[in-house]
């Protein structure tokens, strides 16, 4: 009984120790055929109860030199903690997806640039907090310069 309790505590400690974060992937990663037309999918990790995590996001753009912000279409998948992002922003200009999430007291953020061929994994950035406006601006400028395409 004691051994069981120790194992359970160790398990809980392990989950708590793992940092709450996002992982992004192509729609096939979700193993959910409904998502095949998504721009990309993402999942939360390090959250003991993914169903209770709060997820939100915006699409942040640079169109003709002006910053724009568009509400994001995020759809929860059949597996807990898995979500799909669909394009809800215009085709012109440069755009990044700004993801924010909280799980209990932990928070996470991600900036995912999206180019003409889809999301750009290599230029994506992940934070243990919401991304700042300056970080979003830097990613947009880099995308406009063609970096990471």
């Amino acid at each position, binding site marked *: 009984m004691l051994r069981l309790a120790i194992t359970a505590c160790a398990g809980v400690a392990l989950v708590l120790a793992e940092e709450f974060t996002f992982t992004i992937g192509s729609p*096939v*990663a979700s193993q959910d055929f409904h998502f095949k037309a998504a721009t990309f999918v993402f999942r939360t990790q390090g959250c003991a109860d993914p169903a209770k995590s709060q997820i939100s996001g915006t699409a942040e753009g640079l169109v003709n030199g002006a910053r724009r912000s568009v509400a994001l279409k995020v759809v929860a998948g059949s597996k807990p903690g898995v979500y799909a992002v669909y394009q809800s922003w215009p085709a012109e200009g440069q755009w990044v997806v700004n993801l924010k999430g909280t799980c209990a007291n932990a928070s996470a953020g991600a900036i995912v640039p999206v180019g003409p061929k889809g999301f750009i994994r290599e230029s994506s950035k992940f934070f243990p907090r919401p991304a700042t406006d300056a970080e979003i601006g830097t990613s947009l400028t880099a995308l406009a310069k063609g970096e990471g395409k």
Partner: protein
Amino acid sequence: MFTRHVSRRLAAFIDGELPPPKARQAEVHLGRCALCQADREQIRFGMEILEHLPSVGAPEAIWASIEAACRESPSRKPPAAHRWRLAFAATLVLTLVGAAYWRVAHPFGVRWEVVRLAGSPAVDAKHIRGVGRIGAGEWIETDSVSRASVKVGQIGSVEIAPNTRVRVVTARAGEHRLALERGEIRARIYAPPRLFFVDIRSGTAVDLGCEYVLNTDEDGSGLLRVTKGWVSFQWKGRESLVPAGASCQTRALLGPGIPYFDDASETLKQALEHFSFEEGQSDALSIILGESRVRDTLTLWHLLSRAEVTDRERVYDRIAVLAPVPAGVSREQALKLDPETLRLWKEELAWTW
């Protein structure tokens, strides 16, 4: 030149059971003998129909009759009433089999819409102008300037490229199946997985919720290129899982090879072709392992179960270097090709694909 017809060996040839030299002989002969080609078509169609026959339970009355007949002494001539009963049972069985065949061959008269996109595509040799219909057992054929689009029931559409010949095998709600003899099709399917199938001579593309292009020549060599979702490419118990952005070659008598991402290096693709379809696997494997990026763990994951047992550890180690091995995947179980371990690992690796 005198050549023997191969009609008697066709069933074994289609099943891939002929030894390679005999299979090649049959293939060469089929290439120039219209008689044997026609026989092959009939046999393949019959085989496909049989594969898809629903199993129908015989009524209890039949078994009672048969058991009663068996209990009778064999030396004694059965009375007339028994003979009638047996005859009735046999007739009933034949009727049921006939009805099942009819149901498969003519599934409630469902016919899919065919739209001419260019030139003059033909359904069962009749050219269509504008919109036509195609049902189970019928062929659609395009020449070098024709294209057509087939609406696949309620689940999607298939575009037929020029120089293509394809037959509707099954057209019912639970199964939509085409047989592509040659040419190219582009499928866009919106339905849940495993409702749409395309047979070619060296494999079956099983839709797992996807969009893809599939081409084949008459001997069965071809290429599957997936643009959205997943396709399971199957042949004789072997499966290649092909996600969006990846392709998979297939060869006559060998079936689908190992899938690869289209943006993989040309060196990797060439080595993979050697590995899948030619001799000298060990040299090719070294090149594949050396050329693999994180994303190419798609290829490596398939290699685990296709490589020789002695090479399996090298493949495992390379995947482990490229992507962290997730909890629940042990080296021992992976090298034993434990299905649950491989599934878990694939689902984790897919986040890098």
